[in-house]
Each structure stands twice: as structure tokens, then as C-alpha cells.
């Protein structure tokens, strides 16, 4: 199964900066392997980031987001002890959620 995401959430002047590094092949379906066969498409379709229970960012992605996607965004607020969670769903129905606590 997919490896964990690396999430770093930092509080800066009343807002929280979130950096996420996901682990995903992000195959476009256009690349050929060494034997010349097409590598089937396999990419993250949807990303949902939450601060506690509130959705702060959602994204729909195509296959052209780079392998092992990186994402950075900032939301207002955030206090020590709050959680930031990130979920992704891919086109093969795989999903993964990871979370970190704000410190």
C-alpha cells in the first residue's frame, strides 16, 4: 500500500502553513516501460485537507501533477493541539489519510 505522507504544519503569525509531500507514482498512462508496454494510468484524483473537522483546501488533480506530489498552502488560525489532516484518493480507488498535530 501507499507509504505515509509527510506533513509539516507550522504556525506563523496567526496562520498555519502546511507542506505536504505525498508518496505516489502519478503515472500519466502515456509512459512506456522498458519492454515497450504502456504503464497504466495511476494518479491522485482528489486531495482534501482539514483543520480539525473543517475542510480548508480541496483539490482535483490530473495526471500531470509530478510524481510524489508536493503541496503547500496556508490557512488562517490554528492553535497548539489542533490537527491537520490530508486525504488523497486516486483513480484506482486507493486512499490514504495522514495527520499531524500542531505544536
Amino acid at each position, binding site marked *: 500500500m501507499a507509504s505515509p505522507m509527510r506533513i509539516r504544519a507550522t504556525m506563523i503569525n496567526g496562520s498555519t502553513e502546511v507542506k505536504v509531500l505525498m508518496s505516489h507514482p502519478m503515472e500519466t498512462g502515456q509512459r512506456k516501460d522498458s519492454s515497450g508496454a504502456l504503464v497504466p494510468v495511476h494518479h491522485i484524483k482528489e486531495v482534501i485537507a482539514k483543520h480539525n473537522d473543517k475542510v480548508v483546501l480541496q483539490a482535483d488533480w*490530473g495526471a500531470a*501533477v509530478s510524481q510524489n506530489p*508536493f*503541496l503547500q498552502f496556508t*490557512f488562517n488560525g490554528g492553535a497548539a493541539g489542533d490537527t491537520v489532516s490530508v486525504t488523497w484518493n486516486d483513480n484506482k480507488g486507493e486512499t490514504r489519510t495522514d495527520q499531524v498535530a500542531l505544536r
Partner: protein
Amino acid sequence: MSLDRRNFLSLGVAALGTLVSGLSFPLRLLAQHVRPDAAFAATDMAGVYAAIGSTPETSAEIVFTSPEIAENGAVVPVSVTSNIPGTTKISILVEKNPNPLTAVFYIAEGTQASVQTRVKVAQTCNLYAVIEANGKLFSASRETKVTLGGCGG
């Protein structure tokens, strides 16, 4: 007696509160977006704009950064910040990719209209950031020269 009445009223208020929060939950679900599949499947910029309904107007209020020269087209860092008030969506498009539309970010209230990510760029071309604010579309573009393609081939 009056205490009873007060208790009774506060019960009513609590019940109303539950009802309202109960109602707002499905409303929020309804407000959720639908993945713009047609726009993702479009194979050129005109197709994407047709799928999203209109062509954006160029705006100087969008801060869009990408490298001028990308040595590796498979990993091109891009950053989009919109200074347009009421920004709800940030899309990233790569003109000459097989499917230009790469990513759409939905900005919730209280989240800054600024995202950074990395995209694949198949060949030297323009990258576009398209912003939706108050139902209108705005865009900014930048050219990125690619010395090695993003498709590994």
C-alpha cells in the same frame, strides 16, 4: 413556575440550534464541487475553456511563478497567489501537455488564495494560472522552457 418557563425556552433554543446545525451539514455537502471531468479530458486550451464555460481575462493581480528554464520537465515547481478578493478556485494549466488542465484547488473561507505544487511540463510552453473569483475567471501566464521532457521518454 417562571423557572420552568425559562428552562422550557432554553430547551427550545437548544433544539433549534441542533436543527440548524443539522440542516447546515447537508447544505455544506451540497455546496461541494463536482470534479470537472470534461475540462480534465480536454486536449487543448480552447477545449478546457469551452468545458469551464468561458475564457478568463488576463489579470495583473495574480502572482504566478514558475522557473524560466526547467531542467527537468517532470518536476516544475509552480506557485500561484491570487490578490483578487473572493478567490474560490485556483487552476493550473500547461498549454502543450496532452491534457492542459493539471490541477484545480478549491479555496475554503479562511484559507489564503495561495498554493504551491509541482507539475509535469511535456515541452516548452506557456503555463497558465486561472482564478475564479465571484463567478468570474481571471488568468496569468508564464513561459517555461523545458530542456528535458516531462513524460520520461
